[in-house]
């Protein structure tokens, strides 16, 4: 600005700042000023400095939200003040409270029109803070059936064993496409979601996984690797101990000859022997 001198500039800027028309930002060259949006300024009319401070802190937190205790630390305001200000802002519909899925009593605050981040709501597996176990179960079974039928088809083809084994594998991308096409999910599922489901199948002992190196650019490869999954059978039959009543008995430790509970008068054994 050429035709004003430094002092007049400083006065004008200070007046605009106090009226709330300018934003003050710091950069490594010095101080910068930015004109504020006219809608925003109308919203903030009538709020005092403390509320503006709190609003700014919440805005900075982005879509992860910020907890009330953290607001208190950052603004150094007492708790009662903070609560009053938060209530005020909520009634003006500038911020909203979102319950975190990690700790159900904790509430984080974020700007009204922002989408909460995945880590707060839990992503695809949570709907309204509730873990959707049936949904997970259904997906689990569908993935398993898909892999099982692929393995069956490979076994029937009776070609040489290498080809058989390779064709019984399915990459995580294929499984993802299959599930998307099935359309059982209302929520959009990503490949990582499918991989977490496939991991649970591995922990069930029904599926095994290998990682192979794949060329960049092939469908479904992430950082030059691809995960392949295959349905497998368990390696032993249910073991001998669990076929006797003693293996599953809840009062095993209390059982001894001559006591209240003993092999001679064991009711579980009597039932089992009548089969």
């Amino acid at each position: 600005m050429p035709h004003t001198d430094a002092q007049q500039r400083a006065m004008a800027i200070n007046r605009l700042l106090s009226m709330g028309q300018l934003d003050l930002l710091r950069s490594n060259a010095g101080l910068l000023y930015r004109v504020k949006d006219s809608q925003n300024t109308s919203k903030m009319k009538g709020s005092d400095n403390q509320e503006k401070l709190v609003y700014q802190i919440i805005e900075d937190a982005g879509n992860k939200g910020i907890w009330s205790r953290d607001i208190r630390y950052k603004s150094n305001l007492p708790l009662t003040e903070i609560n009053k200000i938060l209530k005020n802002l909520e009634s003006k519909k500038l911020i909203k409270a979102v319950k975190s899925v990690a700790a159900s009593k904790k509430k984080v605050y974020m700007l009204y029109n922002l989408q909460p981040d995945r880590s707060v709501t839990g992503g695809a597996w949570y709907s309204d803070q509730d873990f959707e176990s049936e949904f997970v179960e259904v997906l689990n079974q569908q993935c398993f059936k898909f892999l099982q039928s692929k393995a069956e088809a490979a076994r029937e083809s009776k070609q040489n064993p290498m080809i058989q084994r390779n064709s019984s594998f399915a990459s995580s991308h294929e499984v993802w496409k299959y599930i998307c096409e099935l359309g059982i999910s209302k929520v959009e599922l990503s490949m990582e979601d499918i991989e977490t489901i496939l991991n649970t199948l591995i922990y069930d002992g029904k599926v095994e996984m290998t990682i192979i190196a794949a060329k960049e650019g092939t469908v479904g490869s992430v950082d030059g690797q691809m995960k392949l999954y295959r349905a497998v059978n368990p390696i032993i039959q249910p073991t001998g101990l669990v076929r006797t009543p003693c293996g599953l008995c809840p009062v095993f430790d209390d059982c001894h000859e001559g006591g209240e509970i003993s092999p001679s008068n064991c009711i579980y054994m009597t039932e089992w022997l009548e089969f």
Partner: protein
Amino acid sequence: MTQAEIKLCSLLLQEHFGEIVEKIGTYLVRTGGQPLRVIVSDTGTSLDQVKKALCVLIQHNLGTYQIQKRGFVEYSVQCSRVLCILRYPRYIYTAKTLYGDTGELIVEELLLNGKMPMSAVVTKVADRLTETMEDGKTMDYTEVSSTFVRLADTHFVQRCPGVPDASGPSDSAAPPAPTLVIDEKDMYSVPRLNLIGKGKRRRSCDDDDNGEHKAKKQKQDLESQEPPPDDGIYWQVNRDRFHQHFRDQAIVSAVANRMDQTSSEIVRTMLRMSEVTTSSNAAYTQPLSSNEIFRSLPAGYNIGKQVLDQYLTLLADDPLEFIGKSGDSGGGMYVVNLHKALASLATATLESIVQERFGSRCARIFRLLLRKKHLEQKQVEDFAMIPAKEAKDMLYKMLSENFVSLQEIPKTPDHAPSRTFYLYTVNVLASTRMLLHRCYKSVANLIERRQYETRENKRLLEKSQRVEAILASMQATGAEEVQLQEIEEMITAPERQQLESLKHTVNKIDASENQVDETIFLLASYVDSTVVAAAKKP
């Protein structure tokens, strides 16, 4: 020796050998090696009876003796040998599948008698086989001998250590107990015996309707008066070899379940080739080249060399890691990872027990912990995709039953609970031992229940035995049909039903004892193999 093991030993000894042997045997299992005088005074039985009991125990390879430095002899009984009595039916069944009825009877006779010379075994087995054959046919000794030789060649039976020849100077005082020696290479060599003869049909004293056979029987008895040519060479069943066989069977069936029939046949061939070259405690078999395996495949499997190579590569790459590749000479050298295989089988047993006891969701958590070793509560919920409340419940249940344990990692020196990490982990060896103890107690419970059921129905059993005896004698004297029917009706219908159900019960308990013994075998092999591997490490 845990309490459960001692209880099981005493039950087995009592069932097979009687009260006195049981008392002495249990005392020795509990207190280790003791000299004769101490046994007599501590157990309160007479010297004569103690001597007889010790004879029985030593004859059946359950007890041993040792000359101590001071010059007296200590007798001891090994718990593991007594527990092998549970496995006798499995040994006999294995011999039957491998060597037919002849092999089955040979092993059975050896197990019943502890130690026997070969000629006695052959005679007895031939007699028994002749019993079951049709009239007019007899069993030739040579057939039985040849089966015996085959059993010895594959190391299923072995020679007992014998008294060494008197080679020392005669003026040195005779030691209080002979030291039994056996030369390594003689252990499986069968002496040259010229056993000619046929099996004799034995007639019991009750049926003497064909009086002419009596005279023949007396004449045959006279022939066997002279001493057998192989006096002093006694044979016993080689339990370790049978255990090796069971272990191989378990590995082959695991491979068949995970992959297909052909792969399991390849593994079976590899294990068969290493049977006599690998000791039973080794962690790996000797490396076998792919050419050797190709040559030793059974005749029925004509798969090409390339296909065999592909199968071997697949087996080596499998996450199970049963087969490993140790080199490239000779078309690829492959070993069977015995220790790894046993570990996988033991973990699979653990997982199956957790699944049956607590449910498949708990099994998911258990397997997750096995893979990831240490996890926090929150991480367990995330990985297993189980709601937090249920996951917590299941973890605490498994914790209370000692399947999982907690590892504390404090953040601050004062170990405050709010500032400590608590990680869940599974200790496989500890869990295995705990389950092994539970198995022993279960088998003891089953045996007690069987004895209880038999005791309850003793009166009925005795009655039915009397009726059968009367029936048999009346049939022998040629009674009429009506009289026979009268006697049969002495057992009323409900009593007959009770007898049926008793038989059914006893059979069922017997079968389940064998099943639990299979679990015991897997878990005990894993524990032994781990202990050996840990001892080998510097």
